[in-house]
């Protein structure tokens, strides 16, 4: 009786795992099946290297370099905010706060992660954008900077939460030994705990990067969606994700524009894959080297 139940549970869990892999496989297959025919008409070089994205003109041009720059700029900006603050939050919560306050702050950070992206976008459109426009004397508040700030706030809980786990996993014996040798709490935190928690923190950074690259709604609402090469952080940009969201409804199914958008999706997929692979390698390498 117990053995049969064992086998059933094993079969069920196997089934679930296979189903999810199957689903992922199908999505990948569909994505590349729709995207690959695009490259029979347009060379990958002009796609990846061209800055002009005018898909509805006659003749159309499909260059995503400006969007790659847009996504890159916004993600870099988001990480510049999320990583220092996320690590700081993790250290503060894990090392400095007493138990009671720790729980409250942890919950507060989790709530930050739960706010829908459209709410962030609305806040950016109505409050943050105009404020930055006034403060910095810009022609418009819809810029890469606004998007970066908001994405930084959205990615912060991801970075903080993984960094927190990493910090908590550092054995107390290391801390006690450091303090016993005469180090101050700050020296212990910075020179013992952080290096020990390095691999988990890196994992948090890569996950945060993945969150920032894939975000669509917020950047759609606050980044201005200008499909031109961004001269600076203070100009409107368009990300890869916003391009797909803005134009997919319009592109005639099966046409060149439609396939171009799938190609953009395929690029996003490859980036995320690369990020995960590199992230894993870095985490292993950094974690193993102790």
């Amino acid at each position, binding site marked *: 009786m117990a053995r049969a139940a064992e086998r059933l549970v094993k079969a069920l869990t196997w089934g679930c795992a296979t189903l999810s892999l199957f689903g992922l496989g199908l999505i990948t297959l569909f994505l590349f099946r729709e995207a690959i025919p695009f490259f029979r008409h347009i060379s990958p070089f002009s796609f990846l290297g061209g800055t002009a994205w*005018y*898909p*509805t*003109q006659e003749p159309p041009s499909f260059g995503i370099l400006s969007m790659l720059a847009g996504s890159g700029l916004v993600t870099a900006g988001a990480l510049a905010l999320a990583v220092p603050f996320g690590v700081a939050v993790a250290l503060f919560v894990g090392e400095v706060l007493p138990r009671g306050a720790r729980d409250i702050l942890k919950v507060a950070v989790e709530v930050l992660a739960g706010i829908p992206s459209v709410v962030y976008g609305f806040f950016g*459109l*109505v409050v943050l*954008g*105009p404020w930055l*426009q006034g403060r910095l004397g810009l*022609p*418009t*508040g*819809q810029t890469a900077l606004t998007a970066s700030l908001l994405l930084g706030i959205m990615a912060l809980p991801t970075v903080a939460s993984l960094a927190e786990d990493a910090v908590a996993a550092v054995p107390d014996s290391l801390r006690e030994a450091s303090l016993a040798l005469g180090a101050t709490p700050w020296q212990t935190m910075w020179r013992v705990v952080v290096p020990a928690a390095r691999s988990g923190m890196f994992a948090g950074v890569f996950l945060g990067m993945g969150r920032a690259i894939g975000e669509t709604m917020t950047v*759609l*609402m606050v980044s*201005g*969606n*200008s*499909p*031109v090469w961004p001269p600076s952080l203070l*100009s*409107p940009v*368009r990300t890869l994700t916003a391009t797909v*969201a*803005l*134009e*997919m*409804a*319009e592109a*005639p*199914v099966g*046409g060149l524009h439609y396939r171009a958008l799938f190609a953009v999706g395929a690029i996003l997929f490859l980036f995320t894959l690369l990020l995960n692979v590199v992230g894993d390698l870095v985490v292993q390498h950094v974690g193993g080297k102790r």
Partner: protein
Amino acid sequence: MVRTAAALGVVLVLGLAGLAGEELTLKGSTTVLPIAQLAAEVFAELHPELAVSVQGGGSGTGIVALIDGTCDIADVSRAMKPSEWERAVDRGVYPYHWLVALDGIAIVVHPSNPVRQLTLDQIRDIYTGKIINWKELGGPDLRIVPVSRDTASGTYEVFGGIVLGGEAPSARGVLYQPSNAAVAETVARTSGAIGYVSLGFLNPAIKALAVGEAGTYLLPSEENVIAGTYPISRPLFMITNGFPEGVVRKFILFVLSDEGQKLVEEAGYVPVRRIK
């Protein structure tokens, strides 16, 4: 035992709630959206057993949904394209157009902008990057920030056709917004902005310019649109799959009735005929 019964009970109730009455789904143009929403609200009061849902997404989205069968009525603010017609016919969908309102596309700027009128050529030059500063048009020394709709939008198509003559808005730094409301919001908060919105989205936070050619400038008012003299005007449609039956037909007839056309006026648009 009791817990299982309770769980089953909850599932049953939720399932039955889903069966409550018929559904009517409208999808498409954000221009037609205010009309659709008003009409849906009043119609739903008259038919409480009905669940009416109205969504935006752009004319292109609405047409795709109608062809795919995921909505009953598509709201559109532009003509259908040849490729869309072909696809519809392929799928056995006959797009029956109902003219539900008339619309003007207003060119709007920030209220602090002293410029009051522009020619169509000047607007085109702004959006294609040939004019980049308001001082070139008699305004302050302020960089122009052109605001456009996204490419799935019927408003974008009509603006592009009538004002840009089919060219792309290729100026540097054109901001693309996903809805009429977002364009209005952006222009209201950006002193150097110029944008285009449908009549129903004019509000005190933005200023409409008089538009024209050869010396005659006209404001986007109801009279000018009905008279056909305002240059950037267009019909607004609701499209059904073939000649509609049942609740879809009732809804369309409601929108075309005097009561429905009064709602069109309330939404800020122009009714298709003079109503008392």
